[in-house]
Each structure stands twice: as C-alpha cells, then as structure tokens.
C-alpha cells in the first residue's frame, strides 16, 4: 500500500483514550460506530460545568443558574448551527432512540397506519415504529443492500411516515435520503432521518435536506453518553403529542389544567442532562472546527482503504460489498471465514492479540443477519482521529488470522 495523507492526524493528540494500552501495547480504536472516544475539550467542558457552574437551568435567579442556562442554551445553539437549524427546532433527548420514540409516540398513529423503512435499520429506528404502527420495510438483496429505488412501491393509503438511516450502522453506505424525502413530500408524508452514524462523517444541512425530523446521539459524535438530539421542523414538532410531562415543560399549571411551553421545552420534562448537552455542544463545535467537508473526505478515504483491503483477504465477505466506494463512510462490516473461529472470537482475537478495538456480534441489526443467515459479523469503524496506518494494521492482522 502506498502511504496516504492523513490530514486529520493532528487530532490524535486531542483524545486521551488513544494513550491507553492493553498488555503494554497501544490500542487501535476502530469501534466509533459503537461509541466514540472523547476529545479533551469535551471532557473539559463537562468537568468545567461540574467544577464551576453546577446549578439547574431555566429556573434559578442566581448567577450560577444563569451561567448554567447560558451554557445549556449555548449548546442548543451549537447543535442548531451544526445542522443548519434554528435552536427552537432542537430538542435534547437521551439519544437517537429516544428521539425516534418521541416522534413515534407523538404522531398518534391509528391502527393500520404504516411506516416505510428498510430492513437494514438499527433497532432504534425500527422497533419504535413497529410498536406504534405497522412497519413496512424495503427488502434486502443478497449483498445486504436495500433496493432503495423501490420505496414508492411500498406507499399505500395508510402510509404515514418514512424513516431512514442516512448511513447504515451495518453497511456504512450513505442512503439516498434526498430521493426518499422527495418521494415522501410529493405525497405530503413526513420523513425522519436517523443520523446517528452519519453525523460524525458527513456535513448535515437539514434545510437543504428538507427532512422533517432528524435524530442523533451524542456519544457517537465525540460527545458524552446519555444526550441526544431530535431536530424537527417547528410546525412538525408542534403537532406532536406531549411525550412526557413534569417540571420544566409547563408554562402554567393550575387547578383547571396546565399549559405546556412551546417547542422545544415542551418535550424536555424534568431537569435535563445539562452537562451532557454542554459536552455535546463542545463535541460538535470541535467537529465543525475540523471542517465537516474535510471530515467527510477523510472518512471516505479510510472507507476506501478499508473496503479495498478487505476485498483482497481470502475468506472475507463484506456486507454491502458491492456498494460504490464513493457512497461509503469509514466503516465496514464483514465476516472472515476461518475454521475454528466464530466472528465474535475474531473480534476478541483482534483485541487480545493486536489491541484492535472492533465490534463483534449483530450490531442491533438482527433482521439483516437473519436474512443473510449470518451468525454474527465483525465491524470496523473509524472517526476523525484514525489513520491509514491503523487501517493497514487492521488489514494486516486480518490477513494474518486468515492465514492461520
């Protein structure tokens, strides 16, 4: 392999976790699709909140509460800027899953109502729809790719919404979200975009996309766990039924009833995850500082190196391996047919012998694995700090294991 430039290699110094060793050797972190390491600025932002600004938001009249509120709402503005939305369209949630559940609950589906999605969706973008309505998935081809073009064939008079991951957490392929949105809007249907994976790899502009809802999770975009985002067009959010009630979401509560706040506070009952939101704001600010176009180019380059390398290893089968390289991010899920070695054992050996942190299992995509008759897969996924040398190291390890 020829050496490749790593224009974001300087970011490695920002991630304390990358200094970690196992058995005396440095780790190679290739599991950011599961959860990403945190840069020091995120850690500092969270610690700073605890050290200097601990107070509740929106309700205190003292200095600390004002500081906490300013930091919290500043984070909301940062998220809005990241997505090209307005702060009033940003609801803080626990994660992507809660965002999807909030919408699925709030739309008030009637029995028989349908949601069109793909069989590839993460559980978080499948089960909430399955619980609230009838989930109608686009199928999967033999390679594990949904025939996205067939979406319109699945529309029925009962279709109420389309839900789609912008990037699949299993294939790493960028979905034709714009095409789905156009098809849905032509029929007046809203679309929810699951950006849990894509937000770390692609510039996202909700205005340009014209999606109605979008969700993401903090922990995958270099932020803390337990914080997520639901973006919604303001009129769409306003139509949603209340999700939870309690403190913070109500403007007035009297004997004769209560009046909820406007969006987004109406969906943020109870004391929010203040430190999480501030950490998320710091993470998205960090990513924007790197320039998301540069992040996209880096992810694309690593994905290309990874997939091309895997294709050259005997016994490797890549999920959606036929997808064009230019539509991928730095993620690949695969099996390595090696006698005596399950896919989970393979992931374990990668860690034990090579200190490579990768996922092994089903990646919350059981339907995909069932249909492809796969008893687990291994997933390698990158982020801004990963380098071509790390991809080459992982490929060399896999080649070595394949030769056992």
């Amino acid at each position, binding site marked *: 392999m020829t050496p490749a430039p790593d224009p974001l290699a300087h970011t490695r110094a920002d991630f304390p976790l990358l200094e970690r060793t196992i*058995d*005396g050797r440095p780790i190679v972190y290739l599991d950011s699709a599961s959860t990403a390491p945190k840069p020091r600025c995120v850690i500092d932002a969270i610690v700073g909140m605890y050290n200097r600004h601990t107070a509740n938001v929106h309700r205190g009249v003292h200095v600390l509460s004002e500081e906490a509120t300013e930091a919290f709402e500043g984070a909301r503005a940062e998220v809005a800027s990241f997505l090209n939305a307005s702060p009033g369209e940003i609801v803080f949630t626990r994660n992507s899953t809660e965002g999807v559940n909030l919408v699925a609950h709030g739309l008030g589906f009637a029995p028989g109502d349908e949601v069109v999605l793909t069989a590839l969706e993460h559980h978080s973008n499948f089960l909430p729809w399955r619980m609230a309505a009838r989930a109608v998935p686009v199928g999967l081809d033999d390679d594990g790719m949904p025939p996205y073009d067939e979406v319109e064939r699945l529309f029925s008079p009962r279709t109420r919404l389309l839900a789609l991951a912008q990037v699949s957490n299993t294939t790493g392929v960028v979905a034709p979200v714009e095409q789905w949105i156009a098809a849905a809007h032509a029929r007046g249907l809203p679309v929810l975009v699951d950006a849990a994976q894509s937000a770390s790899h692609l510039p996202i502009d909700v205005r340009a996309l014209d999606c109605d809802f979008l969700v993401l999770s903090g922990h995958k975009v270099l932020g803390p766990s337990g914080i997520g985002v639901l973006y919604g067009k303001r009129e769409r959010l306003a139509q949603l039924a209340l999700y939870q009630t309690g403190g913070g979401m109500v403007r007035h509560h009297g004997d004769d009833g209560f009046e909820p706040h406007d969006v987004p506070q109406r969906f943020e009952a109870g004391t929010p995850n203040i430190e999480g939101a501030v950490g998320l704001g710091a993470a998205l600010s960090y990513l924007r500082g790197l320039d998301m176009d540069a992040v996209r180019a880096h992810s694309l380059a690593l994905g290309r190196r990874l997939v091309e390398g895997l294709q050259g290893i005997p016994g490797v089968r890549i999920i959606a391996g036929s997808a064009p390289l230019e539509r991928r991010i730095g993620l690949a899920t695969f099996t390595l047919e*090696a*006698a*005596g*070695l*399950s896919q*989970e*054992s393979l992931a*374990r*050996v990668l860690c*034990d*012998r090579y200190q490579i942190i990768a996922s092994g*299992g*089903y990646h919350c995509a*059981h339907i995909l694995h069932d249909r492809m008759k796969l008893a687990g897969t291994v997933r390698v996924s990158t982020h801004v700090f990963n380098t071509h040398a790390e991809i080459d190291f992982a490929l060399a390890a896999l080649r070595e294991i394949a*030769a*056992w």
Partner: protein
Amino acid sequence: MASDPYSARCAAALEGALAAVPFYRGWRALDPGPDRPAAERMAALPVLSRADLRAHVPDGFVRSGFSARDGFAAGEIEIVTTSGTTADRASVVWHQPWWDRSLREAARVHPALEAVYRGPHREAVLTSPMCTGNLCHVGELPVAERTLGNLLFLNQELDPARWDAASVRRMADELNGFQPDVIEADPAYLAVLARACIRSDTPLHQPACISLTYEFPSHLHLREIRRAFPGVPVVSSYGSTETGYVFTECEAGLLHQNTATCHVDIQPVRDSRSRGRLGRILVTTLGNPWFELLRFDVGDLARLHGGAPCRCGRTDGLTVEAIEGRARDLTFDTRGMAVTVRQLDDAIAAADGLLAYRIEQSGPRRYAVRYVAEDGAEEALAAALPPLVRDLYGPDAEVTARREPTLAPEQSGKFRLALTTFEWNVEELFA
C-alpha cells in the same frame, strides 16, 4: 533423571515445549539443562500469563509439526474465549478430545464422578452463560437449542438474582425432564436455585452427583446445595478453560491433581506475607500438542496438604487441602498478611442468616462488609459480622457493615467475595 512415568512425561513435556513450541524459544536460555531434575528446571522458568496467551494464541503454543491452520480446517481445534473479567480474559485453542480426556481423568479421583463419566451420561450445566459460551443476543433460547447431545445448559441469565419464580420453575422442570446423572454447576448459581426450590416447595431431580466448579464454593453455597440435594455427593472440581481439569476432591475431602493431563507447581507465597503452604497454581499441560502451556498462572491460590497421606490412598501428583480463591481477591490483615477468600469464608460464612457477602478493603485497616440477610436476621447479622471480621483481620480493624438487597456478580457472571480498592502488585507476594 525421570524416575517414574509421570516424572518422565513431565520432563518430556518440558523438553518438547522448550525445543519445539515457538513461544518458549525465549525461555530456553533459562533452562538449567536436561541433567537437572524436572522440578528444578521448571522452577527456573518464568510464569506464563494470560497476557502471553493473548499476544501469541494460536500459533505461539502449537508444537512444531502441528499446524493450527490444518487443525482449524480439520475441525480438530477452535478458538474460544475464556470467561474471566476484563484483564483476565483470553482467547485459547480448544481441543475437545483433550478436554474430554482431562474431564474423564480428573473424575477418577472421586468414585461418584468416575461412575458418571466413565460411560454414557446426561449432564446439566448451571453457570453464567459467559462460562458456557451460550449467551444469546436475542433472549432465552428454547430448551431444544440449549441441549447439545448429552448436555443441557440451564441458564442464560447473567445474574441469578434476576431469576423469577417462572425461571426457577422452568429450570427445575427441565432438570426433572432431562434427568441428568450429574449437575456441573457454579456453586453460587446452584445455591440460588436450591434455595428458591426449597422455599417454593419445588421438587428437584436428584442426580448421582454434583460437580462444583467455575468459582470458589462458599460454605453458604454448600449449605443450600446440601439442603436441596440431601445425600447427593457434592464434589469440588478445579480447572480452567486454558488448563482443563486440574484438581478434584476425593471422598476424604482433599483435592488431588489430575496427573494425566497436567503437572502443577505451587509457587509459594513468601512466609512474610502468609501462613502455611499457600501458593499460586502454575499448570503445565500434558498431552495437548495444540496448546502447550508451561507454568501457566491460572490466577488462583491453593494450600498444599501438609499432613499424613490422604485417607483415600491416592499418592500421585499434588494433594491440596483447598483451593483458596483468586490471587486478586486477596485482602490483607492489619499486619499486612494475606487473607485468602477461603480464610475469609471460614471466618464469616457460618453466621446465622447470612445469604451472601463481600468484603471490600479500602486501606490497611479499613474493611466494609456488604451482606444479604435472610428475612428476620438483619439486626443479628449487623451485630455479629463486625466482630467476626475483626477476629480475622485484627483487633484494630475498622469495620463497617452494610446490608444489601442483593450483591451483583462481575461482568463475567462470577461473584467476588473479597476485593481491595487500592492497587497492589500480586508479584510482590512471591519469592
């Protein structure tokens, strides 16, 4: 130099490993040579750790002339991952015929076990799914999918405290239906099942014998198990995924080494840190060319038997008085002497009404005991436990006791009875 067949096999294993197993190339210079006794040669070698396994499995431990690639392709061997927690986990090369032989040979120590394992038998396994590799990502498997030939795997829950009445009933029904000759169990798990069945008056199949393994058997566990299985021989077995079965309890209550598939060195803890014949268990595997281990540190401690020959008449291999628990679970008395899990268990497990406990040492004289009490025993235990802990650790021990509704297992599904919250180096204990 080898004077008997076992010594000759040990010497050959050592010679063969140093000469023909890749990992040990670096050890050859430390070998005093074939003219020295095997024990002296072994003692001159380093200790093999799980970190070594992690770095060099599979090819590092395969004897030359054997190809891991061919072994995998032929289905002779596979890679399995051990169930230990975090730093204790490792991938190992699993050779089923050698494992089966290890089990059969170890079983010969106890007549009840031998009677079961010498012929066709049915066996129920009750432990953490992490230990049996049948942790399922999609929920509990039906019994047909948990039955592999003569084996029934009863449990898929990582914490037996989560078993509800239906789970207990289901396991009891499956035992009654499967009619196993032997139950091989983690004592903590079997104790919970036994207690739940007694309390709910649920009948339990009585096997020909019970083999306790996977983790240290507390007196608490044994008490419950013996109540639910009166008259059934309960035998302690000791081994690991890496080493096969190593020690088995005989009818007289001592544990004897399985000389057919392993050699054991007990590396003594320094006299200044412990009392009497305590050491760590170092296992050398015999007869498994796919995974040759020399002086592998399993991470557990044993106390050598120092008295008269065992009443069972067995004289080959080592005899140990007890497995004393994991080295990393050692705590220290107020004078700095090591206290093993077994010593701790002997000191406090007999307390009336005690269902579970864990000691956490946070300083040279600071101990917290967390405990689960039977209904009605809470106050008595709150009064009884601190003096028992002081008796063990020293009159100047500062002891707090806190009642808990349950105590959770580690991520591996095993229950830790003792721990320190400060760092210490286990290697400093050994000469």
